């Protein structure tokens, strides 16, 4: 399953870059994230409850940031295993400056295995889009609230 899109974050690129690598910020922004710990090898261990409304599953796994080119781009690998299935994804995030704001573009492939893949086909793509959107909305809020250096911008629109 292809996942791609972009979101505008009303903050300068280096602020967004730092935010995207800050476990504390991420932990608050990733929907359903219950735990996110930086590991010695640079990866993160995560525990999260992924889903939409009542449809939820608990997953644990790792997030890896690879080939970082600050503050422009990095590659991200996500692997999670939960009851009845797994999620896996790999993609590239690109940060571009646009009039003092930052456009984060992402493009990647996600793979879902187990019951969600078997019976949830019809909702899968929409759900993935929705979770990604939620993340960026929350992330933008985090940046606005916790990064006073961020230039004040208009209310977040998604």
């Amino acid at each position, binding site marked *: 399953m292809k996942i791609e899109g972009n979101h505008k974050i009303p903050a300068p690129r280096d602020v967004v870059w730092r935010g995207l690598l800050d476990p504390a910020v991420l932990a608050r922004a990733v929907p359903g994230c219950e735990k996110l710990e930086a590991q010695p090898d640079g990866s993160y261990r995560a525990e999260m409850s992924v889903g939409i409304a009542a449809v939820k599953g608990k997953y644990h796994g790792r997030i890896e940031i690879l080939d970082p080119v600050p503050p422009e781009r990095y590659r991200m690998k996500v692997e999670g*295993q939960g*009851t*009845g*299935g*797994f999620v*896996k994804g790999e993609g590239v995030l690109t940060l571009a400056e646009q009039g003092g704001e930052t456009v984060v573009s992402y493009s990647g492939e996600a*793979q*879902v*295995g*187990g*019951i969600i*893949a*078997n*019976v949830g*086909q*019809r909702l899968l793509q929409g759900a993935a889009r929705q979770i990604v959107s939620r993340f960026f909305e929350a992330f933008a809020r985090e940046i606005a609230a916790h990064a006073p250096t961020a230039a004040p911008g208009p209310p977040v629109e998604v």
Partner: protein
Amino acid sequence: MSTKLLGERIKRKEDPRLIQGRAHYVDDLKLDGMLYMSFVRSVYAYARIKSIDAAAAKSLPGVLEVITGADIKDQLGLIPCAAGMEGLKIPKHYCLAVDTVRYVGEPVVAIVAKDRYTARDAVDKVEITYDPLTPVTDPESALGKDSPRVHEEFSDNLAFVAKLEAGDWKALEADSTLKIVKQRLINQRLAPASIETRGVIASYSLGEETLTVWSSTQIPHLLKTQLAILTRTDESRVRVIAPEVGGAFGSKLNVYAEEGVACYASHRLGKPVKWIEGRRENLLGTIHGRDQINDLELYVKPDGKVVGLKCNIIADLGAYHQLLTPAIPTLTALMIVGCYNIPNVWVETKGVFTNKMATDAYRGAGRPEATYIIERGMDLVARELNMDPVDVRMKNFPEPKDFPLALPTGVTYDTANYQKTLKKVLKLAHYPTLRKEQERLRKKGKYLGIGLSTYVEICAMGPSSRMPAGGWEFGMVRVEPTGKVTVYSGTSPHGQGEETSFAQITAEGLGIPFDDVTVYHGDTSVVQHGIGTFGSRTTAVGGTAVFRATERIRKKMARLAAHRLGVKPGDLEFRDGKVETSDGSKSMAFGDVVGEAYYARQLPPGVEPGLTEQYVFEPANYTFPFGAHVAVTEVDAETGEIALRNYYAVDDCGRILNPLLVDGQIHGGLAQGIGQALWEELVYDENGQVVTGSLMDYALPKAHQFPWFDTQTTETRTPVNPLGVKGVGEAGTIGSTPAIVNSVVDALQHLGVRHIDMPLKPEKIWKILKTVDGRQ
């Protein structure tokens, strides 16, 4: 007046228990102390098992046992494959995965608990860590040098190659007057999806050291032998019972991992263990059907005579062989010329391993693919030569007098009159009127399609020499001392209605009321021998065994009566509950003759007391039912939606013993064949995940999707068995699929459409329409 039963429309003996909810399927059985089993299954298509942590599951109150592949690998044998072909690669197929999983849904851990709720809860508590590998999902690229291998012990993913070559291909290829019609055809993967899923109860008695297994199976006797081997139990101590079975369509003609593990668990715990398959498990882990890629070339004379057929078959076998997995695609080659005597045939079949569930026998098993290939092919020939599809077929049919007809494919067709069924169906459908209507509608921009299919299929499996595990069948008739008659059959019908048709055979044979006969099947301790129900064999082979055993009873009873009446046995007839001379002058009541046998006071010399006779029928050949179908479809030019407007079928399954049952088999077959053409598709994504894992995703046909089936029959009897019966279980499925596709392609032919792969989803049609006439 004789008691005429054969050929009559007789209501089924099976039905009273079924329509009142009194029948017992596996899940309806409850044994004392019974435990429940559940499975943790692979969520990966291909992965190494790094670790299994079952501690949390084990500590759940009510969980008695957690079993892994490592635990049982040395205790339980491998899942058997009965197909014996030269050079076949047979991978080790454990009941629970050992080290590696190779398809999504493969059983990895079994849990036994006190009830099904606890067993289910425990599944979520088992933590398996996998190391994913790159799965093989496309059978064509699986054959490439660089493809990952499904089994590392083999050098490649090619499980077997089977070749069939006949005729003079040098001459044919040198003949420049021939047209070559080529087409790639995809026969998609299907799920048999009987409404009752699989299920098993294994009960090992520690005291008697006997193993009793209730399984929703088509082959209790074969299963008994295989489970004895698998569980290393003395076969004399194994009993298999197929209780009521809620449909199978080939999917229960197998030996499955869950059956083996249930036996193991019961032996270990000394309690009965039940496992009932869920629907998702069924779609993931019960065998699938079809899944072939067929590259067809037909060599055609300018007048429409087809003189050569070449076909490359790639069969996606899945990861492991189930009982008959590799054998199924070879049946495609066997029947590939259909009802045309094509002298030159060249077929190469490659069976390929992929990271999917095994394919195996699903209703038709290899023959629907064959019929689809040749019937799509004949339509393409008609199109190429601008002929009517009817004329091309008529041109290539052998004459009725040509039978028995030995074909280059190695089979000999018994009897047929293809012209007759085709003419009859054309009349039924008002074919010329339909063609005119089609013309008229085309002018208005409306697309009506008329699709034809003339099929022949191979049934009554079969001569033992051609079968993997015996093709005979066992029948026994016992006249009880009270005069009631018990019939025992080694077949294992599960909806086909042979409790009724076998009773018809015996009651008519003995001249007694239909209600006086009871038929037993499906229990290896009640019926001594048997092969089972599959391959449209039950009535033709099993019914013949019953017929012959009935004859033996007649012979003995005639001898007893003749002895008492002072006539020759040959002078006696069995009718209306009497055994009497044809003029009725000397007569004994049926019951009195039975009394002679049991009281045994005045037996003729050399005659043993009692009235039990058996017969094992070994057919000398298969039988070859045939038929002609016409499908009329309407295609919505705007959305690509297809409406099936009419369906006409004329089928010839040899002699008809009960028209009610024959109609039922035809209708059901049609629904499944039409289902394949229009809706059904078991889909794996590129990572090897099943994405049609529920009946909300896998589209089984529903009542409102069908028109009234207009069906008729012709009766061309077979000399292969004394009943003249050919078999009808799979005919509808085999004939209907190409009729539908031919119909939809026919509807769009004037736009330049040549072929559409199944299932004919509206989106495919829409895309084609968009490209052919540039609309939208």
